[in-house]
C-alpha cells in the first residue's frame, strides 16, 4: 500500500508533479483512528459472538445475542421463541449479527469511513489512492451496497427488540417490575443510540420524505423530513456512539454475568 | 507572422454576461450561426456579482405595480436624463424576460401563492425585485448559460454537432472591430490559452462587454471591467453617450486590501448600521442637504427610533441616496477624519445583538468573516465609496440596439448607454441586460437578413494592422511593466476624475492621461504569448485609458451636478443641462465630446408625472410647452 506510481495523478498533460500529494497537515490521523476503532470492534465482537456464553443475566440480554433464536440459548434468554430449533449448533449470535452488520456495512457513512481508511480509496482528499483501476459501486460485490434500505428495515426490527429488552431491564434480578439498576441505564442508552443512528440514516431520510417531488403536497412528511434532516447532520457521530455503545452494553452484561462487577441497584 | 485562426459566423456576440447570452439566444432562435466570445470562462461574467435582484413590474407582491410606475421610478432615479424610449421598453418588457428565465430553469424565491417573490429596493415604489437570496446574478448567468447549453443539445440532436449553430469561445479577447467601408465586417482578437490570434468574420456584431470599473483604483468590478466594449465601439467609429456618469457605491469594503472595493450591501444600513468617523461622530447628520431636510431625522435619537417605528419617525441620514452618502464619506476622509485605511466605520455591532446580525445579514457576516476575518457582530467595518457601474455607454437605437454610426454593430447591457440616465436604480441592471440583450440580438438578426448576399469582407491589410497592433507589447524589449502603468492610471482617475470633480483637477487629469499614451506605446511583456497575463493587461490598458479620457472630457464639459456626476464647482442640478447629452467620438486619434439634444419624451409618458415633479427637472419653457400639449 501507499506506493507511488499507482493512479493517474501523473497522467501526461497534467502538471508534472511527482509527489502523490502535497498536503502538509496530518491527513492520516483520521483514517488511522477509523482503523483502530473498527479493528478493535471487530476483534471484540467476533470473540464475543463465538464465545457463546455470558450473554444473559436476569433481567438483561446482551445486544449481541438478542433475539436469541436457537435451542442452545441459555434459559430465559429466548423471549421471542426458538424457531431455529436444535439443529443450529453454533453460537446463536451468528444467526442475527448479519443484520446489524449488514446495516452498518452498507451505511453511507461507514462506507465513506472504510473506503477511506481500509481501502484507501482515497486515503484522504487530494491524496492519490494506490489502486490502478477503480469502478466504484458499479459491479459485484459493491453494487450490493444498494441493498442498504433492506438492512435498514431489518435494523428497525432489531431496534424494537432491543428497546423491548431495555424495558425488560426495569425488572430486577428476581423478575419483579418497577426497579432500576445501572444495567437498565446501559440498555436504555444503547437502545436510544441505536434509534438515533437508524433514524438519522440517509435511507430513512429518503423514505420519510426525500423521495417526494412536492413537499407542499405532503406537509406531515415534509415536517418529519426536516427533523430527520437535522438528525442526519449528526449521523457520523451517532454511528460511532452507537457502535461503541453496543460493545460497552455487551461488555457490561458480560461483566455482570461473570461476576466481574456488581450491577448496582438504583431503586 | 503567427498563423491566424479564422472563423465565419452570421452573428458574433462579444461578451457572455446576461446581455450577451440573451442576444445570442435570440440570434440562434432565428436560425443564425452565432458565436459567443467570452473574455473569461463561460459562466464567470461579472453578472454573477449582482446580489439584490432583477427589477420587473410583475405585481406579484403589490398588485398596484405596473410598467408605468416602474418607468416613473427609473426616470426619477436617472434624474430625467434617461433615454425615455429605453426606460419605456425596459419597464414594459422586463416581466416577460423574468418569466422566460423560469421556463429555462431559474428558481426564484417564491411568494405564498407560488409566484416569483419580489423585494423592496431603493428608488422602487413597490416591491419589485425578483431575487434568489442575495445571489440573483448567479442565478441569471447560470440560467442563461444553461439556456445556451439546451440550444446546443438541440443542435446536437438535429445535426450531430452541438456547436453547429452556437459556439462559445471561452477566454478569448477581442482587440478590434474590423470594418469594410462603414460597415462592421468582423472581430479580431486573441485566445488567452494559446496566445493565438483569431479572426471572426461576421456582418453583425453585438457588443455586450460590460463595464469600465477597472479604470478606477477602488472598484467592485473584476479585472474584466476594462471598458473593452466601450473602446471597441469608439475605435470602430461609433459614439459613447453620458460617459461622465459613473456610479460610486458608498459602501465598499476598504480593508483588508484583499477585498478592497467589494460591496457592502445597502441593507446593512437599512437594518441599523451607522456610519461614524474616526472621532466617533455620526457624521451623516452634518450632510443632510436642504431638499431632504424634512424627510430625514435631525437627531440620533429620532433616527434610532425609526428602525422600530418608521411611521412616526424620520429615517436616519445613513439612508440618504447613494450619491449623497458617498460624497459625505469622501468629505470626511478628505478632512482627515477617516478610518485607519482611508474609509469610515460602518457599525452594526453596537445596535444589534450578534444573533440578530447573523440572521438578518447572513451573507455579509460570511463575507467579512471568510474574506476579511472580521466579525461584524463585534467589530466595525471599514467602508468607503467604490466604483460600481457606468451609466454611460455606446450610443444605440433604443429599439434595435444598433450602435450609432457603424452599420452592423449593436450594443447592449452596461456597454450601452442611455437607459439609466445619470444614475441607475438597484435591480435595473439585470433587467436591462435581458431586455436590451434580446433587442440587440433581434436587431442583429434583422440586419443580417436585410443584407441578402451583400456581406462585408475583411481585407488582409486590416488583419495585418490588427495583428501587428496586438503583438506589439510582446515585441518590444526594455519597456515598462504594464502593472505599474495600470496602478498609476488608476491613481490619476481616483484622484482627479473620481467621485467629486472640479474644473482644475479635471483639466489636470486630461494632461496626465495624455502622458500615458507614450507609456503605453512602450510597454514590455516578457514571456511568450500563451496565457501571458501581462500581455493581456497591456492590451486592456489601451481601453482603460480611452474610457478614462472620455469620462474626464465629458466631466469637464458638464457644468452641473447630477446623479453620478458631482462637480464641486457646480454643486446644483441645472434644468438647462438636462436637455443635453454629451456624446464622445474619436477624431484623428483624439477624443472629442459634443453636446447633443436629449430626445424629448412623448406626451403620454410626460403625463405620467405631476407637473410639480417635472418642475424640479425641466426649464419653464419646457413646462409651458408641455402644459400646452396637455391642454391641446
Amino acid at each position, binding site marked *: 500500500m501507499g506506493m507511488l506510481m499507482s493512479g493517474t495523478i501523473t497522467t501526461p498533460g*497534467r502538471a508534472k508533479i511527482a509527489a502523490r500529494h502535497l498536503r502538509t497537515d496530518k491527513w492520516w490521523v483520521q483514517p488511522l483512528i477509523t482503523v483502530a476503532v473498527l479493528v478493535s470492534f471487530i476483534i471484540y465482537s467476533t470473540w464475543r459472538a463465538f464465545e457463546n456464553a455470558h450473554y444473559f443475566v436476569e433481567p438483561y440480554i446482551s445486544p449481541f445475542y438478542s433475539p436469541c433464536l436457537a435451542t442452545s440459548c441459555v434459559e430465559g434468554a429466548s423471549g421471542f421463541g426458538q424457531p431455529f430449533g436444535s439443529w443450529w449448533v453454533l453460537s446463536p449470535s451468528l444467526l442475527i449479527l448479519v443484520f446489524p452488520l449488514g446495516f452498518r456495512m452498507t451505511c453511507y457513512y461507514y462506507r465513506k469511513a472504510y473506503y477511506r481508511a481500509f481501502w484507501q480509496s482515497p486515503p484522504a482528499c487530494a491524496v492519490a489512492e494506490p489502486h490502478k483501476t477503480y469502478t466504484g459501486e458499479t459491479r459485484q460485490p459493491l453494487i450490493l451496497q*444498494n441493498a442498504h*434500505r433492506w438492512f435498514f428495515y431489518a435494523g428497525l426490527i432489531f431496534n424494537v427488540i432491543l428497546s423491548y429488552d431495555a424495558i425488560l431491564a426495569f425488572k430486577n434480578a428476581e423478575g419483579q417490575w418497577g426497579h432500576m439498576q445501572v444495567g437498565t441505564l446501559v440498555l436504555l442508552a444503547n437502545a436510544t443510540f441505536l434509534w438515533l443512528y437508524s433514524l438519522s440514516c440517509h435511507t430513512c*431520510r429518503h423514505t420519510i420524505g426525500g423521495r417526494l417531488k412536492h413537499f407542499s403536497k405532503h406537509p406531515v412528511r415534509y415536517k418529519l423530513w426536516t427533523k430527520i434532516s437535522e438528525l442526519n447532520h449528526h449521523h457520523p457521530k451517532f454511528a460511532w456512539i452507537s457502535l461503541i455503545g453496543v460493545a460497552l452494553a455487551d461488555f457490561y452484561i458480560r461483566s455482570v454475568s461473570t461476576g466481574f462487577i456488581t450491577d448496582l441497584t438504583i431503586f | 507572422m503567427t498563423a491566424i485562426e479564422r472563423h465565419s459566423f452570421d452573428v458574433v456576440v462579444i461578451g457572455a454576461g446576461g446581455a450577451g447570452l440573451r442576444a445570442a439566444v435570440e440570434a440562434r432562435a432565428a436560425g443564425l450561426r452565432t458565436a459567443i466570445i467570452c473574455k473569461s470562462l463561460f459562466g464567470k461574467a461579472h453578472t454573477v456579482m449582482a446580489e439584490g435582484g432583477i427589477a420587473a413590474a410583475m405585481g406579484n407582491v403589490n398588485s398596484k405595480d405596473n410598467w408605468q410606475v416602474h418607468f416613473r421610478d427609473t426616470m426619477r432615479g436617472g434624474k430625467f436624463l434617461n433615454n425615455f424610449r429605453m426606460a419605456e421598453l425596459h419597464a414594459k418588457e422586463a416581466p416577460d424576460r423574468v418569466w422566460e428565465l423560469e421556463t429555462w430553469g431559474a428558481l426564484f424565491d417564491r411568494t405564498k401563492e407560488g409566484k416569483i417573490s419580489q423585494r423592496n429596493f431603493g428608488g422602487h415604489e413597490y416591491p419589485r425585485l425578483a431575487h434568489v437570496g442575495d445571489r440573483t446574478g*448567479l442565478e441569471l448567468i447560470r440560467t442563461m448559460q444553461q439556456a445556451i447549453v439546451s440550444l446546443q443539445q438541440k443542435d446536437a440532436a438535429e445535426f450531430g454537432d452541438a456547436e453547429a449553430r452556437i459556439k462559445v469561445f471561452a477566454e478569448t479577447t477581442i482587440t478590434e472591430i474590423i470594418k469594410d467601408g462603414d460597415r462592421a465586417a468582423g472581430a479580431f482578437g486573441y485566445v488567452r490559452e494559446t496566445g493565438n490570434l483569431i479572426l471572426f468574420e461576421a456582418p453583425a456584431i453585438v457588443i455586450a462587454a460590460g463595464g469600465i470599473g477597472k479604470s478606477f483604483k477602488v472598484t467592485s468590478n473584476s479585472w474584466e471591467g476594462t471598458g473593452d466594449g466601450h473602446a471597441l465601439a469608439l475605435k470602430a467609429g461609433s459614439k459613447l453617450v453620458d460617459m461622465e456618469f459613473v456610479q460610486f457605491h458608498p459602501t465598499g469594503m476598504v480593508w483588508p*486590501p484583499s477585498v478592497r472595493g467589494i460591496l457592502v450591501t445597502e441593507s446593512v444600513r437599512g437594518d441599523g448600521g451607522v456610519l461614524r468617523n474616526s472621532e466617533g461622530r455620526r457624521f451623516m447628520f452634518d450632510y443632510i442637504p436642504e431638499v431632504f431636510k424634512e424627510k430625514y431625522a435631525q437627531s440620533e435619537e429620532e433616527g434610532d427610533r425609526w428602525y422600530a417605528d418608521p411611521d412616526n419617525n424620520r429615517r436616519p441620514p445613513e439612508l440618504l441616496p447613494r450619491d449623497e452618502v458617498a460624497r459625505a464619506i469622501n468629505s470626511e476622509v478628505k478632512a482627515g477624519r477617516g478610518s485607519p485605511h482611508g474609509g469610515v466605520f460602518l457599525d452594526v455591532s453596537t445596535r444589534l445583538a450578534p444573533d440578530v446580525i447573523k440572521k438578518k445579514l447572513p451573507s455579509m457576516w460570511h463575507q467579512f468573516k471568510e*474574506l476579511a476575518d472580521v466579525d461584524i457582530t463585534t467589530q466595525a467595518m471599514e467602508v468607503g465609496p467604490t466604483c460600481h457601474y457606468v451609466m454611460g455607454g455606446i450610443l444605440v437605437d433604443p429599439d434595435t440596439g444598433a450602435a450609432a454610426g457603424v452599420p452592423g454593430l449593436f450594443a447592449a447591457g452596461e456597454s450601452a448607454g442611455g437607459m439609466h440616465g445619470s444614475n441607475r436604480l438597484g435591480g435595473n441592471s439585470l433587467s436591462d441586460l435581458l431586455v436590451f440583450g434580446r433587442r440587440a440580438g433581434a436587431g442583429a438578426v434583422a440586419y443580417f437578413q436585410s443584407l441578402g448576399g451583400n456581406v462585408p469582407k475583411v481585407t488582409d491589410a486590416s488583419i495585418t494592422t490588427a495583428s501587428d497592433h496586438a503583438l506589439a507589447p510582446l515585441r518590444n524589449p526594455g519597456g515598462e511593466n504594464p502593472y505599474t502603468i495600470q496602478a498609476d492610471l488608476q491613481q490619476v482617475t481616483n484622484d482627479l476624475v473620481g467621485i467629486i470633480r472640479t474644473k482644475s483637477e479635471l483639466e489636470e487629469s486630461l494632461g496626465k492621461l495624455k502622458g500615458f499614451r507614450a507609456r503605453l506605446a512602450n510597454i514590455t511583456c516578457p514571456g511568450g504569448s500563451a496565457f501571458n497575463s501581462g500581455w493581456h493587461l497591456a492590451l486592456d490598458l489601451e481601453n482603460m485609458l480611452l474610457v478614462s479620457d472620455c469620462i474626464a472630457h465629458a466631466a469637464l464639459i458638464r457644468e452641473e451636478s447630477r446623479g453620478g456626476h458631482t462637480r464641486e464647482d457646480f454643486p446644483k442640478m441645472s434644468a438647462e443641462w438636462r436637455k443635453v447629452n454629451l456624446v464622445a467620438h474619436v477624431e484623428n486619434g483624439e477624443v472629442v465630446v459634443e453636446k447633443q439634444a436629449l430626445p424629448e419624451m412623448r406626451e403620454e409618458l410626460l403625463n405620467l408625472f405631476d407637473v410639480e415633479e417635472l418642475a424640479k427637472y425641466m426649464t419653464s419653457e419646457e413646462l409651458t410647452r408641455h402644459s400646452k400639449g396637455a391642454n391641446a
Partner: protein
Amino acid sequence: MTRTAKFRVWRGDANDGALKDYNIEVNEGEVVLDVIHRLQATQTPDLAVRWNCKAGKCGSCSAEINGRPRLMCMTRMNTFTDEETITVTPLRAFPVIRDLVTDVSFNYKKALEVPAFSGPANLKPGEYRMEQIDVERSQEFRKCIECFLCQDTCHVIRDHEENKEAFAGPRFFIRLAELDMHPLDTLDRKRAAQEKHGLGMCNITKCCTEVCPEHIRITDNAIIPMKERVVDVKYDPARWLGSKIRRREGL
C-alpha cells in the same frame, strides 16, 4: 504588518514544469491571490493565473494550496504560520495549460451531457407556480459557482483518467439532483444518473463536500438522495417484480 513569506509556485506547461521558490512581501489582511498578484506585478509578469471577482463568487481562481483544492481568493494568509512555505499548484485532475491555469473543458463537455430543464408544455411563461419549500432543495444546488474544486478533488477521475469518459462528477450530480427535485421538471433523471452519468462510481467519500466553497452539502443532499432514487427505480425488488409482471402482460 508587512512580512516576507516563502512561496513555492508551480511554473510550467503541459510538457514540463517544476515548483519554483519565491520570497514575497505579504501585508496584513491579504489572501493567497493577493500574493500571487504581487508576484505577477513585481517578479513574474507572465505568471499565468485565472481569476475574476476576487470575492468568492465566480469560482475562477481554483488551485491547490498546500495540496488542498481551494479558491485562492478565499484562502487568507493569516491561516498560515509565518515560517510556513506555501505551495501553490494548478488543479491536478485536469490538463495544465500554463502555470496555475488548467484546461477545465472536461466540465463543459459534461454539462452538455445533462439534458436541460424541461418544463411542462401546457404552462406558458408567467404561469409557473411553485411553493418555496418545493424549490429550496434545488436552490441549494444552484448556489454552485462552478469552481470545479469538487471535480478536481474527486478521486474517481483525479486518480483514474480513464474514468472521465463515464463519470460526470459531483458538480453534475448536483445538477441532476437539482433537476430531479425541480417541482416542474418533466424528465426522469434517475436511471440516466446511474446508466449515463456514472453515479454508481461514486463511493461517497465526501471530498467534494469538504472542498465546496459554497458549503453545498453535495454528498448528503444530492449524491446520496440520487443514489436512493436510483434504488427506487432499479434495485427495489418490489418494483422489479412489478415491472416483470407488466412486461409479461405486454407480451
